[in-house]
């Protein structure tokens, strides 16, 4: 074996090892994140953390009950905006659209997906906060809903397209019109995937902070209705982490653990269900 061959083989081994190391480093990041959050967060989670309002500034204790409810409220509002537009748009793309127009819509959705969340926040501010003259849960939910649209649209379209053509043809052969076929056959057949897509989109926007800063704004107390500023979990984490009090830092870790737990559990559960489903189908 000449020197050049030795060099080539050596380079082969070295570079392949390096790529493995790259993968290892990246993947271990998740476990570092989980580890730190569990370590710091678990110490300050107890029942009252979930049931109490925040304590007045500077006092020890208090909880994040209003933020949890606020986040739930914002997510529901977001789903009201994002799910109909995303799902029905996806039905159009999968069932009706010609190739050219579908490409344009998909492209626009991908562009929208890449718009920074803070810019979506400005958009919601300009559309809703300016016309209502005050911050509100409505504006926050609208911002999150806009962010959900492209995610739901793209993934629902994929799932609708996996419905076999024979099902559609079968329904039409027994005399169903196209929209009846879609409503009673195609959408139910893809319903598992559609629910997954919606849950994943909600998990994604649940952690968004930036678009809420000047739409939902935050609130120390319960917010009544949809017309008032409301607290949200990610905003609480941000505010507490940047505050000068040790007790709030502790609560920020705990809230972080709750948020990350919710997001990861949703992700893992839906993905597992989905992969089992597809492997069964095959």
């Amino acid at each position: 074996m000449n020197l050049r061959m030795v060099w080539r083989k050596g380079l082969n081994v070295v570079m392949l090892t390096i790529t493995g190391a790259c993968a290892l480093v990246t993947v271990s990041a998740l476990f570092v994140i989980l580890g730190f959050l569990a370590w710091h967060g678990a110490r300050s989670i107890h029942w009252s953390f979930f049931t109490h309002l925040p304590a007045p500034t500077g006092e020890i204790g208090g909880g994040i009950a209003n933020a949890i409810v606020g986040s739930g409220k914002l997510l529901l509002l977001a789903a009201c905006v994002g799910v109909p537009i995303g799902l029905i748009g996806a039905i159009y793309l999968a069932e009706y659209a010609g190739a050219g127009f579908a490409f344009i819509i998909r492209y626009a959705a991908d562009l929208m997906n890449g718009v920074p969340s803070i810019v979506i926040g400005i958009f919601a501010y300009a559309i809703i906060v300016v016309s209502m003259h005050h911050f509100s849960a409505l504006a926050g939910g609208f911002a999150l809903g806009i962010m959900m649209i492209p995610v739901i649209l793209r993934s629902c379209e994929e799932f609708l397209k996996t419905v076999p053509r024979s099902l559609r043809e079968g329904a039409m052969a027994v005399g169903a019109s196209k929209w009846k076929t879609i409503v009673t056959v195609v959408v139910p057949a893809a319903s598992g995937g559609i629910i997954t897509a919606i849950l994943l989109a909600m998990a994604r926007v649940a952690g968004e902070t930036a678009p809420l800063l000047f739409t939902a704004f935050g609130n120390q107390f319960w917010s009544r209705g949809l017309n008032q500023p409301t607290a949200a979990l990610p905003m609480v984490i941000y505010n507490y982490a940047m505050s000068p009090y040790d007790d709030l830092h502790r609560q920020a870790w705990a809230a972080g653990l709750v948020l990350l737990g919710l997001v990861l559990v949703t992700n893992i559960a839906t993905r597992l269900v989905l992969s089992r489903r597809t492997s069964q189908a095959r």
Partner: protein
Amino acid sequence: MGTVSTVAGPEASGSRLWVLLRRLRSGDTIAHSITFTFASSILVITALLVYELWIQSGPSRAKFGWHFFYTSTWDPVFGQFGAWPFIYGTLVTTIVALFMAVPLGIGAAIFLSELAPPKLSRGLSFVIDLLAAVPSVIYGLLAVFTLVPLMRTTVEPFLKKTLGFLPFFKGPAYGVGFLTAGIVLAVMIVPYIISVSREVLLAVPQDQREASLGLGATKWETTWKIVVSYAGAGIMGSVFLSMARALGETMAVTMVIGNQPKVSTSLLAPGYSIASVIANEFAEAAGNLHLSALIELGLVLLALTLVLNGLARLLIVLTSRRGAGVAR
């Protein structure tokens, strides 16, 4: 129907109406137009987004013109707004992030697509997808309490001792600053680079690899010279995509960049970014001009990310089409 409509004028128009009614009752026309409306609303929202930001930033654009981009005074009290420190901060942190994330991400993507057994590759990709799902405020939280102290006590003094002769590593070690923000951004964008690059690499037809291996190239030579160069445009796309993410990333950066509108060569110095200044000042903006200057910053961000994303998507689509085309 055809036979009826050929008979006479009035009856024909009646039958046409009847056809229309029947189609309406069966609902297909309605369903078509409703779904069409919802789908096109995505185009409308995108257009409205650009329009709103353009209109709302009007006062600032009219007053400062192009000066907005290269002057450095940001003074809400006297109504003087120059965005250069923020643009500079955004660019520097993004470059630092790409510098670290691109090699790491492409390396990991190569491992996942070329080397790892399919089962391991799927498992690791799952973990990487989860990483991409971690909210940015969580990255910020971790960075504030673990990375920043580590940078202040260990990493930055070390960098100053070893590389202190470079202009990039001068000045006191605060812990917060361009470098710390860049590192956090790098961790955040690596998952995107990996998952998109992996897709593109997997789309490279198998016969390309076999031909190269058959000619006696080593696995690495095949991977680097054949597979990676074949997928080059798509990998470039993944880099643009993650660059757009890094430019617009708000919370994590805001928490660790130091929030001082200064332009410094040193990466250890605190700075500010476009997204951070919007996050910090928007809700408490002093007056119309301040607000409109912040919205103009948002417009800059929007324009940058639209261009980068547009390019990236085109590159990715082109590469995967090429791969699929050859494979068939």
